[in-house]
Structure formats: C-alpha cells, structure tokens
C-alpha cells in the first residue's frame, strides 16, 4: 500500500487558516433528510452529494471501490449507496435499515443530512431523521410516480413540523428525460400535499446516479430552468425565528454544588433572557427575576434560544426538573388532558386505556390515551375510526396524564410541543406525539380540596384501605377464594367490597368485548373504581383474570404506596381446563370462543406478586388464612411506623 505523505509546507500561512475558520463560523447550518419509497435512490443521492462536494477521502474511496465490487448493485460503476449503508445487514441486503447522519459543507453552507430508510417496516427510523430536520428531500422514482411510502413520509414530515420540501424526481434518465413524466408527477404530488402545510415545494428532475441537476446543471433537461439541488439547498431559508417566540426554559438539571449556589440548567427552547427579566414557574405560577446567567467563561448579559445555560434566580422558589421557566406575558398551557397527533412505532399496537410513560424534553409522567379519535389513512387522508393504532400508523388521540405538564401546541413551538411515549415494561420508545391543544375539561375541572380525606374515612372504619388484586387464569379459583376471604374479613368487622370480572362485565363494562384493546379498557375502569373505593376507606377485592402485566402495573400505580396487593392465584392451565367450571375451556379449545386467555390470548404471569397462592393440593381455607395473615402483618407494621417505628 502506498502512503500519502502530507506536508504542511504547501499550505496557506497561519493567517489564511484563521480567515478560513472565521468564514466557516459564519456559515449557516441546514439539517435535512432524504426520504421516499424503497429504491428511489436516497442513499445514492447522498453518496453523489458527498462525492461531488469532495467530502470523500481517498482511503474511503478505495474502500468504496472494493465494496462496490463485492456488494454493489451498479455493475462496474461505484455504488454510492454503500457510502451510507454502514451496517453489515444493510450491505448484504442492499437496503437501508436505519438512519445515517452525514456531514458536508460547500463554500456557502454546512449540512447535516439524515439518510432515512424507505421500507415501511423502518418508518420509525425515518421519523427519527425527520424530527431534527428543517427540510425534506422526497425522492420519487420517475418510473413509479407517487407511491404509498411517498405519501406516508410526506405526512410524517408534515406532522413533525417540516415546512420545506424538495421533490426530487429521480432516475429521470430512465424515462428519457421526459418533461411530460416530470410534470405529471409534480402535479400529482402538489394535489396530494396541498393540505400538508408545506411552505415551499421545489421539484427538480434528477439522476442521482449520473449527477444530473444534483450539483451541476444537466444538459439532458433543457426544459428545466429551476435550480440544481445544491443551489437550492445552499440558498433556501428555513429559519423559524424561535428567538422571536415567548421565552421557554425547560429545567433540565438543578445544579447545587453547595448551599450558596442553586442554578437551573437547561437549553432555552425559545425566546431570550437577560438578568433582571421576570420569569414565571409554569406549573406553580410563582414568579421571580433572573439574577445571573452563569457560564464557564463568565456571566452572560443575555442568552437566546438554542443556548445551554444555567440561570440563578432572585428568590428561593421551588423548581425541579420537568418544570419550565417562562415569560410572564405569554405562558404555556399547563394541563393533564390534551389532544395530540401520534405516530406509532411499536409492533405492539397502541391501546387506548393502557398506561405509557410520557416524556417531554425534561418532564416525565404516566399517560393514557383516553380516546383514539381517528386514524389517518396515508393514501387519501381519510379519517378512519380505529380501536388501536398499529405500527407506522398515524392517529389523533386524547391523552390524559397523571400529573399536569407544561407545553405549547407543537405548531407554535417544536420543542415544547413534542413528547414521546415509552412502554412501561420493555422501555421501548413506542410512539411520538405532537400536541394540538388542551382539552377544555382539563382547564375547567380542578381538583376539589376535600377535608374529609381517605385517612379519616378509613379510621372511622377502624381499618387500613387495601386493594387485593386477584389475577389468574379462568377457573383458577379466584372467585371462590375471594368470596371466602370477604366473609372472613366481614366476620372480623372489616368493610369490604368485591369487584368480580363477570359481574362488572354485566354492568359497568357491558360495552366491552375481549380484544386486547377492550381488555385494557376493562382493567382501567375497574382499577379506577377500586381506587375510588379505596379512597372511601374500603378493603377492595378485585377478582379479574387481568392477563397483561402492563395493566396490572397501571392499576398498581393508581393506588397509594402499599395499598395495592397483587395476589397471583396460580393454578396450572391443565388443571383449570380440567376443572372448567363454566365449560369455557372446552368451547375455546374447540375454537368456539375467540381471544380466550391461555388458549389463543396470552397470560403474563406476575413476576413479583405480593402474595403467590399455589392452589394445587390446597384448600380455599388455607389460601384465605395466608391472605388474612398477610393483611394483619401489614397493618401491624404500618401502625408501628406511624407511632415512630415502635421505639
């Protein structure tokens, strides 16, 4: 191998370097993505851009030539897609799986480009690339025209706040550089996208593979008088002027190295701030003034959107991570109910009623979708009724959060109007949300402050509230044990109530069936009722199959600490099917009943139940003794704790 020996001697003098760097610093940055359907040439286009703007080093080019011979799809030519398809699986399969970020610069501008996958399966990775972009290049294969993925990607780009589109009608060489084909595709796209809120749509006929109209004007498209791609990217204005918006400062980290310093660290989401400015704590409404803007190089006289700073206030007011410091004149919404667009990423569908973790830039709370209003059909924008949102689908939902959160509508502020949803068990990022507006009822219905509280009600009954949550297969013995347990408690003067699966389904939940979505809602309602009863001071016994751990966890989180007691009534499937008290197993195994737990619908056994009842070979009385013993132990422990730990 020959080595390049690079000599500094041939370079411009030091002053030249300084000047060059000063010029670099003045360049603006454009973040964009390439998207569109599979095989429309996204990766090839980026490879072309990198190559034509001289961003590829000699050793990289040598590697590319090697790889092109091994994996390439372009015969003898260099396959530029291999520059960006960096994962082995991608190179082997010749597809893009995940987003790649590449960097290049021209004399006029710096660029970060996200090359995103076209396969529907990897839509979440396209959304990842789009979330930080200001412009999207939508590629279309001139032979194919506007496809389903073209539409899906355009809708997602629009929802994520992208306002500038380049419509790259690619592979124009393969349709003989025909203007009629180009015009037809452009017209199709304009028709389709007229309600997507794009400020600019710039169509360019292009051949990424041969470079026509990418960085140089093509001699093959005399009929086209618009800019080349690079000319447009260098000049398009995408500024969203976030500095002009009201001041928003999501508090990310409270910096408290010693008692004399208490700073609030975060990145200014919008607007600007200076010492002396009045600021308001969004969630509490308390106000103070900015005393200092602390930075490593010395205090700042002002700071603006995009800067990561540390603010010190005049007053000692309560502020923690997740709260927001805001302009007193224009405050954000603070609510626990709002409507939002959701893009769903996970293979497990979004189910209304299921509890997820909602994260904004710095805040985190539990959230449920209370109402899936409709799903958007990506082909024709039709609003379709839906009971769940499947992977890669887009819908409009009402969301309810456990604690109020501070936000702006996404259309007004891309930073404070966005959130993600996280699965409570797998911790996967399952969805992304863009807030539309607060729901009225959240603004108008405030929590009533009540003097007669749970503790007082329970004390009057001389007991501690508890929710015994029985979970287990149908026929495992839940109802039998629950009934016996209640009798025993009643006999000792306790105030109790049983919520039984079958009985509740005849009344409160008569409208629900047995799909996953309905099972989730079934549990949510029962959990809420159990919580109210616990609040009334009762000992509640819930006897529900409750097959999903996510819903049991949601129920647990509704109750006060120590009040939720998960009881796993553990009877093997074979035994339940043998007992079959209602004849249901026989029918389910015959295929007469659908979605039957343990047969064709899963049962997720609890991993750490408070009480684990293994019923085989034991009597119901023995089980009840275990439960009662457990309850007595808890009450004694809590009484001791209340009176100072018994010391």
């Amino acid at each position, binding site marked *: 191998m020959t*080595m390049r020996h*690079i*000599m*500094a001697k*041939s*370079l411009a003098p*030091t002053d030249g*370097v300084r000047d*060059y*760097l000063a010029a670099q*610093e*003045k360049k603006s*940055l454009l973040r964009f993505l390439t998207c569109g359907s599979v095989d429309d040439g996204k990766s090839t286009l980026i490879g072309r851009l990198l190559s034509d703007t001289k961003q590829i*080093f000699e*050793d*990289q080019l040598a590697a590319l030539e090697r*790889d092109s011979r*091994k994996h390439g799809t372009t015969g003898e030519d260099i396959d530029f897609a291999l*520059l*960006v398809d*960096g*994962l*082995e*699986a991608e*190179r082997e399969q010749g597809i893009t*799986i*995940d*987003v*790649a*970020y590449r*960097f290049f610069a021209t004399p006029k501008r*710096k660029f970060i480009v996200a090359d995103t996958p076209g396969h529907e399966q990897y839509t*979440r990775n396209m*959304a990842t690339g789009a*979330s*930080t972009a200001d412009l999207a290049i939508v590629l279309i294969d001139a032979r194919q025209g506007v496809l389903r993925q073209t539409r899906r990607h355009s809708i997602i780009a629009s929802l994520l706040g992208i306002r500038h589109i380049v419509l790259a009608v690619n592979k124009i060489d393969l349709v003989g550089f025909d203007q009629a084909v180009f015009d037809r595709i452009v017209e199709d796209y304009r028709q389709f996208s007229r309600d997507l809120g794009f400020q600019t749509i710039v169509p360019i006929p292009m051949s990424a593979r041969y470079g026509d109209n990418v960085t140089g004007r093509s001699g093959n498209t005399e009929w086209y008088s618009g800019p080349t791609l690079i000319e447009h990217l260098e000049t398009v204005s995408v500024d969203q002027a976030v*500095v002009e918006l009201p001041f928003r400062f999501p508090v*990310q*980290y409270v*910096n408290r190295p010693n008692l004399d*310093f208490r700073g609030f*660290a975060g*990145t200014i989401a919008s607007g*600007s701030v200076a010492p002396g400015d009045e600021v308001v704590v969004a969630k509490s409404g308390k106000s103070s003034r900015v005393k200092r803007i602390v*930075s490593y190089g010395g205090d700042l006289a*002002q700071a603006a959107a*995009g*800067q*990561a700073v540390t603010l010190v206030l005049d007053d000692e007011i309560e502020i923690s991570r997740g709260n927001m410091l805001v302009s007193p004149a224009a405050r954000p919404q603070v609510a626990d109910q709002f409507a939002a667009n959701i893009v769903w990423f996970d293979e497990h569908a979004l189910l209304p009623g299921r509890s997820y*973790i909602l994260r904004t*830039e*710095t805040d985190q709370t539990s959230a449920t979708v209370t109402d899936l209003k409709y799903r958007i059909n990506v082909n024709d924008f039709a609003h379709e009724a839906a009971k769940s949102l499947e992977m890669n689908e887009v819908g409009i939902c009402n969301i309810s959060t456990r604690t109020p959160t501070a936000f702006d509508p996404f259309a007004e502020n*891309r930073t404070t109007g*966005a*959130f*993600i949803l*996280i699965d409570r068990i797998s*911790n996967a*990022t399952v969805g*992304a949300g863009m807030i539309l507006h607060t729901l009225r009822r959240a603004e108008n219905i405030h929590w009533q402050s009540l003097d007669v509280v749970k503790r007082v009600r329970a004390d009057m009954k001389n007991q501690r509230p508890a929710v015994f949550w029985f979970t287990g297969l149908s026929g495992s013995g839940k109802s039998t044990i629950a009934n016996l347990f209640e009798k025993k408690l009643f006999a000792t003067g306790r105030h109790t109530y049983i919520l039984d699966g079958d009985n509740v389904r005849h009344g409160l939940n008569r409208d629900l069936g047995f799909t996953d979505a309905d099972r989730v809602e079934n549990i949510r309602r029962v959990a809420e009722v159990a919580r109210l009863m616990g609040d009334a001071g009762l000992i509640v016994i819930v006897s529900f199959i409750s097959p999903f751990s996510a819903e049991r966890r949601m129920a647990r989180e509704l109750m006060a600490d120590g009040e939720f007691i998960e009881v796993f009534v553990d009877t093997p499937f074979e035994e339940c099917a043998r007992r079959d008290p209602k004849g249901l197993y026989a029918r389910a195994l015959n295929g007469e009943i659908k979605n039957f737990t343990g047969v064709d619908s899963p049962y997720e056994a609890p991993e750490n139940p408070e009480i684990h009842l293994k019923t085989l070979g034991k009597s119901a009385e023995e089980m009840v003794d275990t439960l009662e013993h457990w309850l007595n132990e808890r009450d004694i422990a809590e009484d001791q704790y209340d009176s100072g730990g018994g010391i």
Partner: protein
Amino acid sequence: MTIALTHLQRLEAESIHIFREVAAAFAKPVMLYSVGKDSSVLMHLAMKAFYPAKPPFPFLHVDTTWKFREMIAFRDQMAQKLGFDLLVHVNEDGVRDNINPFDHGSNTHTHVMKTVALRQALDKYGFDAAFGGARRDEEKSRAKERIFSFRNAQHVWDPKNQRPEMWKIFNTRIASGESIRVFPLSNWTELDIWQYILQESIPIVPLYFAKERLVVERDGMLILRDDERMKLRPGEVAENRLVRFRTLGCYPLTGAIESEADTLEAIVGEMLTARTSERQGRLIDRDEAGSMEKKKREGYF
C-alpha cells in the same frame, strides 16, 4: 433581536444538553476518557456543562498497557489539574496471558484489552451510562448510531433494532443491568473538533504536534517505537522523521504521518487539504470489512 449562534456554539450547546440529561436521569454515569483529542473536547464540555460544580461523575480510562507514554503522563497531569475523579482499569487476565498486538494481532489485542476490559470496568462499578467521544463522521457504522445508544445486560448493541430518537427527547429508561452509551460529540466533525480546540485553547497530548520522532516503517505505517517491547524485524531501522499523529491509540497500532504542523493552526491547515480520513492511521479498522460494527456490537465504544 437577532442572536444567531455560530456553528460551534450550536454544537457546544447540544453536547452540554446531553451531558446534563445524563446527569439528571441516570444513577451512576461515567465518562470514558481515552486521552485523545476528542476526549479532551469531551472533558472541556463536561466542565462547562456543570460549572460552577465539577462534573458529577468519574472519568474512566481503560488502559491497554500499550498506550503512548506521553498519553499516560498527560492523563495524570489533567486529572490533577482539573481535579476530576480518575479511574484506571486494566484487564489483568489479559496482562497475565501477556496479550499483545505483536503475538496476537490487533484484533485479539483490541478485543481483550479494550472491549473486554471496558465491559469488566462497567460491570465492576455498575455504571448505567457511559459517555464516549465517538463522532458520526468517523466511520460508517458510527454514522448509524443514536446519541443515546442502548446496550443490553451483556453490553451488546443491536444495530438493527435501535430505539427511535426523536428531537432532543431522549429515552433514558433502562432495566437493571442494562446501560446506555452516550455520545455527546455525535454531530461534530473532525474539523469542528480542531476548530473548537483552537477556539477554546484546550490542552491536547503533544503527540498531535509535529516533532522529530524515532519511527519504524512497518506494513505501510510509521510506527513510533515507544518502548523495548516492540522488537525490530530483520531489515527494519528506526529513523528520525518529522511526524505527528492524527489519532491516538495503542502505539503499535497507530500510524504517524509525516508533517511539519507544529501549531494548531498548521494542523487545521493540514486537515483542509487532507486526502485521507483520520481512521486510515488505525490498523484495527482495516482488519476486516465491517470491523468497527462488529467491535461495537461486542461492546467496544
């Protein structure tokens, strides 16, 4: 009012945001400190992010025992000067088995002394988040990686199934035993790094500057013979040449370039006309196709 941030200000703010997010959301973070130029920038940003406090996490150096002596001296000097908590981990099993780049090849050496050593250290201290200085412009598989990159309890990266990463909203949730690798410099390029070092006067290891050094030409690379453990092959002669390093790693695996660039300005000037990427000087990336991705999946940074 118009306050347009410069390119470097924007990068700096993004990195500081990432540092603070980890400090706020994780129980036991650590910063991987490799002593190179990217680590120097990372350290500087960490100091900025938490000022006037010190970074609320320790710095970990995984020492393969084959680093340049000047790197070790610089490391200890920085730890003393900035007063951060420095942890040094060596894979003692590898030392016992005398794993080295000459007898075992760069692949095995890197795996045992770097990748395995790193996993050992993370497990030993129970770190749940680890900062690294990797940049997306370095290498193709890095270009695909998230800023918050999930690792399962075996430290394995699953590149085909990464968590979506929307806006600046990072999913910091993990189960016990799992961890996140965090890359605050993801969006920086090599040029940005040098520009920032110049702008902020950040100290770096002197090996980056051109100087007469005793080097041996081997396998197309100029290797600095840092100690007696490197035996000369027949016909090889060590000769004084004016060289410097574009990246730093284990000395037997890191090629020098001939250069007269002995100031930061000259280094930047040299970069602007460079025709090869910085990783070209790294023997370990050329071992096999997709070698970086493979190493990363196994737990390498």
